[in-house]
């Protein structure tokens, strides 16, 4: 039995005009699944449906994971709370533990000085670290990622991915992520789902069996070239770009 099963027959922002149709996939413990597609193809909408933030008109999403966290494209920190209080916000539903919040903040590369500051006083990368700490402190077993590092430069992005991977490996977390970056998908995912067409459907699923630690730069490069030859990937990225 899988822990998250997504089965969406139809969803649209306006009911008569579906954006997403006939999508089925499953996520299990410790699995990383990447959804790729051109911008505007419905990736974020699909992620929100899977996380239960919105509901399909027809179909269902069954989630047996205990705790979930979601990293949005923007950090969505509360500007009126300092960083420490922003991190502990995710604990409000259970029990606020400032000591633990400090530990996680340290792990994400924040110091005590940073924790006293308001989000507007921090750089984009630092804000993203706060958002990461806020997500991980709840110890989620399922993580939704909506291109959280899209706005960061590539060095910082690399570092953030390492932080993320460290946390995922440590706790055997399952991840459902959205990206338009093939490199990122090949580097992290066990399975890649390609979204294309209008309304969006799954045009291709690609499993990657090679273990994550052994995926070096060369492997990623070769694999990317191979994927970019696939007709499904070419068309799904072309639909909107014409």
């Amino acid at each position, binding site marked *: 039995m899988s822990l998250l099963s997504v089965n969406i027959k139809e969803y649209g922002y306006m009911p008569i005009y579906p954006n997403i149709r006939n999508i089925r996939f499953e996520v299990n413990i410790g699995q990383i699944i990447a959804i790729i597609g051109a911008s505007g193809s419905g990736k974020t909408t699909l992620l*929100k449906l899977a*996380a239960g*933030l919105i509901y399909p008109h027809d179909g269902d999403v069954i989630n047996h994971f205990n705790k*979930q*966290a*979601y990293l*949005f494209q*923007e950090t*969505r920190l*509360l*500007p*009126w*709370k*300092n960083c420490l209080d922003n991190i502990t*916000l*995710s604990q*409000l*539903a259970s029990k606020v533990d400032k000591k633990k919040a400090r530990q996680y903040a340290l792990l994400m590369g924040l110091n005590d000085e940073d924790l006293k500051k*308001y989000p*507007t*006083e921090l750089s984009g990368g630092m804000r993203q670290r706060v958002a990461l700490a806020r997500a991980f402190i*709840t110890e989620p077993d399922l993580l939704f990622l909506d291109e959280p590092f899209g706005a960061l430069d590539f060095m910082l992005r690399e570092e953030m991915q390492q932080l993320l991977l460290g946390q995922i490996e440590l706790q055997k977390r399952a991840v459902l992520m959205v990206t338009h970056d093939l490199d990122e998908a090949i580097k992290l995912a066990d399975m890649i789902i390609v979204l294309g067409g209008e309304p969006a459907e799954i045009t291709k699923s690609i499993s990657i069996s090679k273990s994550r630690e052994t995926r070096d730069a060369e492997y990623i490069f070769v694999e990317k070239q191979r994927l970019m030859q696939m007709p499904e990937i070419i068309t799904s990225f072309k639909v909107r770009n014409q």
Partner: protein
Amino acid sequence: MQNLKQILANILHYLWSGWGGVASLFLLLASWEYGHLKMGSLILPSPKESLLALHIALVNEQAFIDILITCKRAFFGFGAAAILASASGILAGISMTTSMALRPIITFTMGVPPIAWIILALMWFANDDMTAGFTVFVVIFPIIFASAMQGMRMRRATLNEMANIYQLSLWQKLIHLDLPQVISYLFPAWIVAMGMSWKIVVMAELLGTNNGIGAAMATARVNIDTAATMAWILVIIAMLLLIEYLFLEPIKRHIERWKPR
């Protein structure tokens, strides 16, 4: 200790920032003096004459009683409206339907001129305090209510989504997410309403009561005592300045300290 130092430094900084305001006040006094030189004492008494009249009025203890009575009426009218209108506006703003349904009623009540409410209140209530307090209440209620409702409608849905992921309760969302956003709308409304409540109390007193600043101004009018009128105007302005800059503004600064300056 560190915090105390910080607070003291902030207070000093705040007082120091008042110099700009003081300068423009003196400019206003200068043009007042100029107007007096041009038009004479009957039309516009000089600031000095007005201050003298104020001194004479304040020697009499009846003046303090009048000021206190007016303060009390404005305070209760404003306080009741601020609490009830903020709370009910926030509740109404939660749902799109109630906001849409209540909008015409707000427009309607805001359209009734304060003077009409005063006439009605005079006929409805025998009590002086009720007449003035009620008029303040009905005039400023819709202003604060509309701001609170609008503030709730303008909340960022993205933050709510984030809170849903972490399973915050409705109450927690109200405290941590909604109120800090609404307060940015409420504060300007409170300040406007506070100013209006003073004007309305004085107007209601002038028309229909036997005591308070408005009644004192009515007496000054009967005696064609322009200097006394100006003196009372000074009292009203001074009260308003005190309340706004010593009370509301510091609170606002404290609440909105996260906003980049």
